[in-house]
């Protein structure tokens, strides 16, 4: 993909990689290197992931028995609200874009850094500031509105720390916008010579589409939260029905962001999987162009489906009809992607390394989550299952089964590039398989419980639902173990792992042509690109037709 100097192993003067380039804490806190900022984000979101996870562990413990006595209703409300707020805005939204995206976007397009390196660092500090507000809200006594901050409860009735929590999300929103602007400008302005739009890896396309959604949707969330804060703090009665205000308007504004936010969470995951599957099937991605158009379509149509969250909120039935129709339509590009991943596997030389296990897990769980989404897009079924565990199961299949699996897949896939070390393959495979089964144990019973009528957000339930809740809580314990395992073996690999080499998976992306870990400016010489990102052999051809450095990849591995 690049000139011989980069692809081959010609001797180059030794130089520090990005990790050795300054080792003091200050050098990390003032860095403008996109790779180091990615590491800062990774540490941040890991902390938030386990904070949010701790909250939901308490919830699952409470739900073991129908009238669980661990917590009061108020505490229970605060626990699941904290879980939702932290997991959505401080883990899922920044997860893949700000860690893997930040690290890989410049490497994949052959650039030395992102377009605005200082803005990139600012965005991390904004995330930290927002997180501090939200954690303060928790420490000060919690917030009980759920992650959706629905009015008029959040504005007129809740006596909890709504203001601090909303302010935290508001500030984190600016981080999101800054990241989006940065990534869009980077993709437009910093592609290496020869890196045409249709030679971009699908991960870059995914990050690009995600960034567009971030830039255009997040400001609307900011306004909806600002209106809530203004009503609580300044007494400006925007959503107060007593003064003619319209609480439903809040839901429209909120979901105008929060439905596209689902695609902020899942599009990058699709990008990750589109990198992993071709590599371990040794096959070109099937239907590259359609993959690109599908992602753009998902990002675009995603702005026009928000009303399916409001079928029972009192919106016009005609609006519901259109939103329902568009929600079915958006399933089409998602289905194209699932079809293309599957077709990419066809007659591939598939091996099951840990990243591939995560990626295949993603495809299965995302498909389940997507198909259950069609139930919810259909108005009659949705009315039956609104605010039940069916909805909870559906969006966890997309966001946890989908996005989190893909995040772990990407983390394992690029770990050798990021750290220069190899982790224990056996433990990684074990964790991947454990995660898949733990996930299904946790959330599949919730589909059943929800369909039978168990409402979400209640901390007591009729005894006939206990069997599903016990299954779910037991699965959550397995899932928690599966999430903790990588902390152990990945940390171990940092100190005792074998050296990874530049390209341990024999992948064809531009990021694999530089050293592991990369030098501070990514490439020793400006890369020149003369082919597409998935230069694996075509269907019906043997590995011998790969480019020379990839030939006999299987024997090498």
């Amino acid at each position, binding site marked *: 993909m690049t000139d011989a100097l980069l692809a081959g192993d010609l001797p180059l003067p030794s130089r520090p990689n990005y990790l050795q380039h300054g080792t003091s804490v200050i050098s990390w806190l003032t860095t403008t290197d996109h790779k180091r900022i990615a590491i800062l984000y990774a540490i941040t979101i890991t902390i938030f992931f386990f904070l949010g996870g701790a909250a939901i562990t308490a919830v699952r413990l409470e739900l073991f028995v129908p009238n669980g006595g661990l917590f009061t209703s108020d505490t229970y409300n605060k626990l699941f609200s904290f879980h939702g707020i932290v997991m959505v805005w401080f883990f899922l939204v920044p997860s893949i874009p700000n860690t893997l995206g930040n690290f890989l976007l410049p490497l994949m397009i052959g650039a*030395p850094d992102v377009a605005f390196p200082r803005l990139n660092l600012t965005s991390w500090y904004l995330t930290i500031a927002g997180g501090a507000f939200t954690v303060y809200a928790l420490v000060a006594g919690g917030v009980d509105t759920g992650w959706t901050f629905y009015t008029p409860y959040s504005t007129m009735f809740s006596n909890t720390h709504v203001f601090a929590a909303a302010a935290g999300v508001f500030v984190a929103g600016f981080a999101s916008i800054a990241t989006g602007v940065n990534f869009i400008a980077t993709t437009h302005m910093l592609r290496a010579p020869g890196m045409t739009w249709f030679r971009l890896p699908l991960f870059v396309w995914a990050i690009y589409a995600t960034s567009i959604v971030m830039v*255009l949707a997040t400001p609307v969330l900011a306004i909806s939260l600002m209106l809530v804060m203004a009503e609580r703090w300044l007494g400006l009665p925007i959503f107060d029905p007593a003064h003619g205000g319209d609480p439903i308007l809040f839901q429209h504004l909120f979901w105008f962001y929060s439905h596209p936010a689902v695609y902020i969470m899942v599009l990058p995951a699709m990008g990750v999987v589109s990198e992993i599957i071709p590599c371990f099937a040794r096959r070109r991605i099937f239907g590259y162009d359609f993959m690109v158009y599908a992602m753009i379509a998902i990002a675009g149509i995603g702005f026009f489906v928000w009303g399916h969250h409001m079928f029972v909120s009192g919106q016009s039935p005609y609006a519901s009809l259109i939103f329902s129709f568009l929600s079915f339509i958006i399933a089409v590009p998602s289905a194209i992607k699932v079809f293309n991943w599957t077709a990419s596997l066809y007659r591939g030389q598939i091996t099951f390394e840990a990243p591939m296990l995560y990626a295949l897990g993603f495809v299965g769980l995302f498909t389940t989550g997507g198909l259950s989404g069609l139930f919810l897009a259909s108005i009659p079924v949705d009315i039956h299952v609104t605010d039940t565990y069916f909805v909870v199961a559906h969006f966890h299949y997309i966001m946890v089964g989908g996005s989190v699996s893909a995040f772990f897949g990407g983390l394992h896939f690029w770990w050798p590039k990021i750290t220069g070390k190899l982790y224990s393959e056996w433990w990684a495979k074990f964790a991947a398989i454990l995660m898949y089964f733990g996930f299904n144990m946790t959330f599949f019973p919730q589909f059943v419980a929800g369909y039978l009528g168990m409402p979400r957000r209640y901390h007591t339930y009729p005894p006939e639902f206990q069997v599903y809740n016990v299954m779910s809580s037991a699965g959550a314990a397995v899932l928690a173990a599966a999430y903790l395992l990588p902390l152990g073996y990945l940390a171990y690999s940092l100190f005792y792992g074998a050296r990874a080499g530049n390209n341990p998976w024999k992948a064809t992306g531009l990021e694999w042509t530089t050293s592991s870990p990369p030098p501070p400016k990514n490439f020793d010489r400006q890369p020149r690109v003369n082919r597409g990102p998935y230069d694996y052999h075509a269907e019906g051809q043997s590995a011998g037709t790969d480019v020379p450095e990839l030939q006999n990849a299987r024997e090498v591995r």
Partner: protein
Amino acid sequence: MSEVTGLLREPWEHFERQRGAGKFGIWVFLASEMLFFGALILTYAVCLIEHMDAFAAAGRETNIWYGTSNTAILLTSSLTMAVASQAAAAGQHLRRLVVACLTLTVALGLAFLVVKGFEYKEDLDKHLWPGAQFALHEPGAQLFYGLYWLITGVHAIHLTIGIALVGRLALLGHLKKLQLDENPEIEVTALYWHLVDIIWIFLYPLIYLPGRVS
């Protein structure tokens, strides 16, 4: 082109590319800002449709003289900002003109805030802050003033940020600590300034004209 090497930043190799990226980036950000104010104006539109008469009555309580003078002040500031931006881009060593126009822009921005301050004072004296003491009795009038305070407040915050950015350029340019000639920061700041100005052009009729057309 030799003079622009001092303005080149990481990670750019060529100044033209860097300038292009700065402009492109701020346009993307302005798109985001449009959605930000768009959501506020949408909220206003929904409330207006639900309470036509109350909004007309409430709009009549605003002081159109303050609003109109502020519109004139802000439009003039856009002129001085545009002159500064063009003079800097010309690369003709027009430093004094650029600094003068930037300073004028800051002065006009501050004048806007001062006028706004007098207007806010008058509004508070007339009990136009929503609450128990509120002066108007039409249901929905409190909504108008809730949005009035919010939208003008958010706009004033944007303007204050703009004043700080332009003031920084004027000060550093005056002290010769920043090269103004061909500096893309000026055009980027100008684009932001114009956005804040254009938003006001939309806010003016929404705030001051309801109830005033017969």
